[in-house]
């Protein structure tokens, strides 16, 4: 059975459409990230799943039960807030206890859960402290622990790492994933940071302007983006309009673009003659043959060098491990057909 089933969900605020026609399935124990730029609707979607907003249209089912009109206090979800939202007048232990007490769980079971969570999150020494006596990282863990003691069907995260400094962020990122796997929880995670999304998720839902662009594993999103937005949002991409000239062989097509000709591997025939072609800057192999480009700008980044090049007055990016090419030089490069992606033209 699917853990979360979202069907044709829409949310309007007056004239403004925050989400339109979103349909997603989340499997049990899956870690799914909602990713997108600010205003894309990811927080709205999270609020709809947790119950703080009611949809204008559509259905949400959790564990097979229709919860579309069920208020948050009755849903089997637990939310980790961006601001942690710890109860300032309660100790860490009382904070962790809050949810189970509401559920009227026996005190021996409550104690067992708190001991378990505080051990896993290294909070045993802080149990009698008040939130204002804790560091940011500790507060974050209490926020997580408070959700965990509920043993919810679904655990939700609202950009939990944005208030932490960079080093702590990496650590906590790993911790959250570890805990999620250990407890076998279904998790929905909201972030605008693609590095976070790529490193943590089983699948990512990329949202833009209230619509789902693509739902896929991180690898597939990166190597096989379906739309221009996804290609551009995740990693860097060079995108060119082009015309399909014809098939070279079975599954191999030739596309003519403004900067040159590319061979593209595609399982299906391109639907239209006009296409958008895209490849990642690091896919370019600099050699003695191929497309000619003039180096306009060079930035040495240590483990790779970033080149901005121009062909026929069209600028684009090439990344390579090591090169002696300097500004003003002409380089030649090719891209393996497997790494050239065809996008739908109208995206």
């Amino acid at each position, binding site marked *: 059975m699917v853990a979360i089933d979202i069907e044709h969900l829409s949310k309007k605020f007056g004239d403004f459409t925050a989400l339109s026609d979103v349909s997603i399935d989340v499997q049990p124990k899956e870690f799914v990230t909602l990713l997108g730029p600010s205003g894309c609707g990811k927080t709205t979607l999270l609020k709809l799943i947790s119950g*703080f907003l009611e949809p204008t249209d559509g259905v949400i089912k959790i564990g097979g039960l229709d919860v579309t009109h069920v208020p948050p206090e009755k849903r089997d979800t*637990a939310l980790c*807030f961006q601001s942690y*939202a710890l109860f300032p*007048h309660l100790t860490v232990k009382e904070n962790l206890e809050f949810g189970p007490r509401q559920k009227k769980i026996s005190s021996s079971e409550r104690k067992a859960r708190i001991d378990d969570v505080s051990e896993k999150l290294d909070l045993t020494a802080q149990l009698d402290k008040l939130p204002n006596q804790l560091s940011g990282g500790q507060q974050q863990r209490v926020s997580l622990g408070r959700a965990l003691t*509920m043993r919810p069907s679904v655990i939700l995260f609202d950009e939990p790492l944005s208030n932490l400094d960079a080093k702590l962020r990496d650590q906590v990122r790993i911790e959250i994933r570890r805990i999620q796997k250990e407890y076998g929880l279904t998790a929905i995670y909201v972030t605008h940071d693609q590095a976070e999304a790529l490193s943590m998720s089983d699948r990512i839902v990329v949202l833009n302007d209230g619509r789902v662009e693509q739902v896929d594993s991180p690898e597939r999103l990166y190597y096989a983006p379906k739309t221009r937005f996804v290609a551009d949002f995740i990693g860097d991409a060079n995108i060119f309009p082009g015309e399909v000239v014809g098939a070279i062989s079975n599954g191999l097509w030739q596309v003519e673009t403004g900067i040159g000709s590319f061979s593209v591997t595609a399982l299906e025939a391109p639907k239209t003659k006009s296409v958008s072609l895209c490849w990642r800057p690091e896919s370019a192999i600099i050699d003695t043959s191929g497309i000619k480009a003039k180096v306009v700008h060079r930035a040495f980044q240590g483990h790779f060098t970033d080149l901005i090049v121009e062909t026929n007055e069209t600028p684009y990016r090439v990344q390579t491990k090591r090169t002696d090419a300097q500004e003003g030089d002409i380089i030649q490069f090719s891209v393996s057909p497997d790494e050239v992606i065809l996008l739908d033209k109208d995206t």
Partner: protein
Amino acid sequence: MTLRRGLLIIGLLTPGLGLILALIGTVVYIAVSQSFGFYSLNGISEFSTEFWSKMVGRKIFKRSIQYSIYIGVLSAIFSVALAYPLAIWLRKPFAGSNLIGAILKAPLLVHGLVAAFLFVNVISYHGILNQFMQWLGIWSEPRRLQNDPNAYSVLILQTWKNMPFALLLLTGAVQSISDDVLDAARDLGAGKWDRFRRVIAPLTISSMQAAMVIIFIGAVADFSFQVIAGPTNKQSLSQLMVSFKGRGDWHSAAVVGVSLMVIALVGSAILAAVARIIMRGRIK
């Protein structure tokens, strides 16, 4: 802290704080002294506990104490109990919330005597309430509602006058609770009553105590409402005190006055402590 600076500070504080302490200090001093027989204005000044012993034995004194405490405690409780749900309702602005807030706070602008008059006017024997009830057919003839023996009029007036003050204090406190904290409580399974009991009440307790104490002190020492709308067979402590003074019996007035002050102080402390215990007790 040099001597010069110390003198400067004292000098600056004298016309303000100094005068306050002087006035209040003297007033309290005279009240206490007169209650023990000193500073007599029409007799010999000498120490005596006679006035205290006589007063404690008087039935009217005991009744006044009971009555004033009754008014004080109930006014404080009603005002706060009414103000809490209103403060929570008005926590987030919505269409018309400013208007409601202004209307609810309007009684703060109305003088106590005026309020008493307006109220008495409305409930008078031929007043509009009587006429309305007769028109509806609920009553067949006008009823005498004024000066009722249970002091409902006084309680209503006290609540009407004081609820806005409690609302003022509680609104600030309730708005200082972040939305996230309340959402978190909701998410963890707390319904409306639990959210109040376990999050809002504990976090607003000091404002609630302040409101209760101030309202209690004001209501326990009430004179105007009592005299105009209160029961005729009972006297509030202030009323009693003024009547003694009017007869020239300053010493007895002083006894009542000192008692009033002590009751105000002790009563506030008890009220504040009880409020805290009730709120705390629910959490543990």
